[in-house]
């Protein structure tokens, strides 16, 4: 209290009728003695990190609109690398738009296969509770932590030695992406199942519902936000994926955007068309994320604990 008064009187020494007394000559405490001061150093540090993490991406987007061929010096705005360049634009260069289409195709196919598979697996595993289910729950989690390169080597080996009727290419890529991503819906849905608990299904069973009906009419609606969040994650994850598709793609026709960027960035003479396809994929990802966010908010409206932060956490798989 004494400190408080000293600070306050010290702060207004020239107030009307202020006379200098020994009490007010005590200097105002320096800011670092204020126990509730803001963490300016940490805030500055955070901003520096954010600038470092985001500005390079912004510049890469900017260079996709460059007038000249340089990817490192600005020469004026144009849509040359998207539309007008006769050889190296996304519109006219077959390599570029094929890669974009291939990425979207892989994302769509993988999401459509992985999400139902993973969700059904999660429901079965979580409610079955036998030795088989425990074992395969463990196998699923192991598949989640195996480094992607080792996973890719295994898939490459199996498609080149054992499942030889599936040639490297789109279907090998899709199957590889399915198994690589299946743990997302599985883990997310299991977490949600644990928090839902068995009481809703028991109530449904008491009211005469069969297992199937209970799942279809009670469990699936309750799981909808989790299912949806995992679909967003899988779709965006496939756009981001590199190792599996790199090892399982066969020719330039089955190369998605990530592999094309990888194989032509160094030494290639493509100009900012690479930045252009990367920007297109960035926009697709952002659209999926935004739609995902709003749909998630809509699905969880009125739920306890539903807020912006929770929705963001769920669609990023936190």
């Amino acid at each position, binding site marked *: 209290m004494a400190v408080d008064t000293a600070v306050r009187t010290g702060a207004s020494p020239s107030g009307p009728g202020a006379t200098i007394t020994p009490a007010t000559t005590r200097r105002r405490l320096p800011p670092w003695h204020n126990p509730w001061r803001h*963490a300016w150093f940490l805030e500055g540090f*955070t901003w520096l990190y954010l600038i470092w993490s985001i500005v390079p991406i912004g510049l890469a987007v900017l260079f996709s609109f460059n007038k000249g061929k340089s*990817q490192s010096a600005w020469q004026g705005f144009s849509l040359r690398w998207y539309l007008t360049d006769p050889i190296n634009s996304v519109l006219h260069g077959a390599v570029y738009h094929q890669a974009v289409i291939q990425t979207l195709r892989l994302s769509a196919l993988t999401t459509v296969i992985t999400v139902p598979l993973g969700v059904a697996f999660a429901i079965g595993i979580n409610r079955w509770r036998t030795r088989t289910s425990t074992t395969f729950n463990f196998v699923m989690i192991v598949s989640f932590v195996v480094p992607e390169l080792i996973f890719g*080597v*295994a898939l490459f080996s*199996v498609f080149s030695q054992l499942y030889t009727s599936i040639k490297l290419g789109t279907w090998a890529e899709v199957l590889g992406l399915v198994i690589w991503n299946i743990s997302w819906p599985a883990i997310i849905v299991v977490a949600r199942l644990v928090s839902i608990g068995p009481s809703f299904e028991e109530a449904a069973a008491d009211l005469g519902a069969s297992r199937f009906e209970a799942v279809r009419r009670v469990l699936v609606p309750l799981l909808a936000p989790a299912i949806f969040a995992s679909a967003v994650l899988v779709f965006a994850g496939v756009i981001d994926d590199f190792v599996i598709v790199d090892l399982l793609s066969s020719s330039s026709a089955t190369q998605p*955007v990530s592999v094309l960027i*990888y194989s032509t960035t160094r030494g290639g003479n493509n100009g900012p068309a690479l930045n252009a396809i990367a920007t297109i994929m960035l926009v697709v990802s952002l659209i999926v994320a935004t739609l995902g966010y709003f749909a998630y908010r809509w699905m969880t409206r009125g739920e306890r604990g539903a807020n912006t932060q929770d929705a963001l956490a769920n669609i990023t798989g*936190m």
Partner: protein
Amino acid sequence: MSKTTPKARNTREQRWVWGLFSGPGIVTLIVLFVVPFYVVIAIAAGTLDIFESPVPAWNPLHWRAGNFTSIFGDLVGRGAFIGPEFVRTVVYVVIASLLSLVIAYPTAYFVTRWAGRRKVMFLLLLIAPFWVSYMMRMLAWIDLLQTNGYVNKVLGDLHLTSQPVNWLGGKASTVILGLVYGYIPYLILVLYAGLDRIDQRLLEAGRDLGLNRWRTFMRITLPLSRQTIMTGMLVTALPMMGDYFTNQLLSATPRTAMIGNLIDGQLSTPGLLPQGSALSLLLLVVLLPLMIYYVLQTYAASGRAA
């Protein structure tokens, strides 16, 4: 006379339904995860035919250790040519992980404790890189690090360098920067989630009992986030250990090659698939303790949730 309630009978009779639900997923895991790893072992333990294509040893009784012993010889023996790659991988990953932690922890800490009403805005900025593909983020740095790129321009304008530096010509520092830049968003998310779970009341209690800010952090926040730090380091270190693309894009010289580059090279060279398989398995065995730790953590976390 024993009577079962309708509910109990229902539960017992229809258990097979759960098997039906998980069946397709289980088959997928067997066909696309368990079998492929068996094939890797069979190839690594097999031989080559005269056309240099691998002959997998399907029968465990016919497994040979030749590829494993030769890998081992390459690793530590005389004229060991993959030893440097192994050492380099460990050194790069350790430096990059520690660097990531030093950057990520204060950032995550600030956003959980100090962002106040701006928390959602900061969170959006933190997860923004998550929606930008890894390749695009590497492409961004390649643009910046060209000899005539902005990094050299800024350094030259500040008179820190007299002539442009060839950043992309095989510099270890560039590769480590790439690894940090590539994997740090995941680390920040893990740290953020972990720090956000710490009970605010514990910190208030610490302050009430007279601890200053620094000691509150050292004696409450840091000990409570130890587990999160370990998990976060694993989330970033495991993929870094198998990374070959960052290195290839930012350096592309054998001087900075990591174990992932070796495996990738062996995969695309005829006749070297058995060697590559054996090396992958070796890497897997080395990483196994880390993976087991991570799996147990995940299990423990789901147990707590239940």
